[in-house]
């Protein structure tokens, strides 16, 4: 009789309260397993929630700017068609961060390497005895400039140079030190560019194809 009289209180003390305690402790209990799992997932970035591209163009009045505009259009179209869903999904719009003319500096390039997933540079370039010289607003991007950088623990995995001579002087010659230094000083894994001079029309076509039919990376 006594038990029956106090059944509600006993239920609270022996059933509900323990259940609440266990429930509240559940995240702590499973966290190590959950943590391990996410760590392994992070080996390959999914780019799901924070996909961002950095697009640079050092001279908006030059022909090379057409390539910049083409890349921008590719991502705008992508967002128009696919990136209009903000719900609990991976199909979020790809963020586009642009730096043109005076904003296309070495510092911004480093920032893009740090905070964006892909970087595209449309600029003039030339080949000297010291390797490729990519013209940015405040000076050339070259091996000497990259030597002065500290290690950038960034998100960027791929850099695309729509720049003449960015990867060599042409005729099959490929200049590796610039790429090696970028990869050494950042988390970039792949660099795409041109060996020798490239026609801006062809580069625009190619960039449009690269981004439009497949992806920027």
């Amino acid at each position, binding site marked *: 009789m006594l038990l029956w009289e106090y059944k509600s209180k006993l239920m609270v003390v022996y059933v509900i309260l323990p259940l609440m305690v266990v429930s509240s402790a559940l995240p702590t209990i499973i966290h190590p397993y959950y943590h391990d*799992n996410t760590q*392994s*997932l992070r*080996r*390959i*970035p*999914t*780019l*799901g929630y924070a*996909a961002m*591209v950095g697009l640079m163009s050092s001279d908006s009045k030059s022909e090379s700017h057409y390539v910049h505009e083409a890349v921008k259009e590719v991502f705008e179209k*992508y967002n128009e*068609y*696919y990136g209009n*869903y903000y*719900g*609990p*999904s*991976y*199909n979020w719009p*790809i963020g586009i961060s642009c730096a043109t003319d005076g904003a296309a500096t070495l510092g911004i390039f480093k920032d893009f390497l740090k905070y964006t*997933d*892909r970087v595209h540079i449309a600029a003039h370039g030339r080949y000297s005895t010291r390797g490729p010289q990519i013209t940015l607003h405040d000076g050339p991007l070259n091996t000497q400039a990259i030597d002065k950088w500290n290690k950038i623990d960034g998100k960027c*995995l*791929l850099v695309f140079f729509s720049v003449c001579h960015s*990867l*060599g002087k*042409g005729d099959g010659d*490929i200049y*590796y030190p610039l*790429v090696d230094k970028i990869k050494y000083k950042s988390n970039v*894994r*792949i*660099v*795409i*560019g*041109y*060996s*020798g*001079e*490239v*026609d*801006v*029309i*062809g*580069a625009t*076509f*190619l960039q449009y*194809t*690269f981004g439009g*039919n*497949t*992806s*920027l*990376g």
Partner: protein
Amino acid sequence: MRYYYSAGTFYSSGSYGGYNAVSSFHRAKYYLQQLANDVRNTAVASFIALVGILSAWLAPPLVGGEMAITKLIGELFEVIFGAAFTQATIGYWLEACENALSAFVIIDNGEYVPSMTIVGGGASKGFYDTTE
């Protein structure tokens, strides 16, 4: 550990299909090559025909009359102007494509860099899973 992501995660492998940066590079080259071929094979012919017809239509009034000589001149216009226009426009585009193709270079160590865009299956609302 193998990773399987749905189409919506921008990365997939195995039966899900998908691209990475390297395959994107090769596909871009392939598409441009196809574009160049298409331009070469079809656009040139149609452009010659179009310009030729236009030239043949314009030539007789310019030289006057409907005599045989005017028809001959019209045909000459068709050939010369058609070829010249083709060379000047299509030829330039072809050269530009071929130049870009020959200069295009990728440097990587075989690392997998996933695509940013969705692949296969359209804009499915994704999930991901891992399997050993």
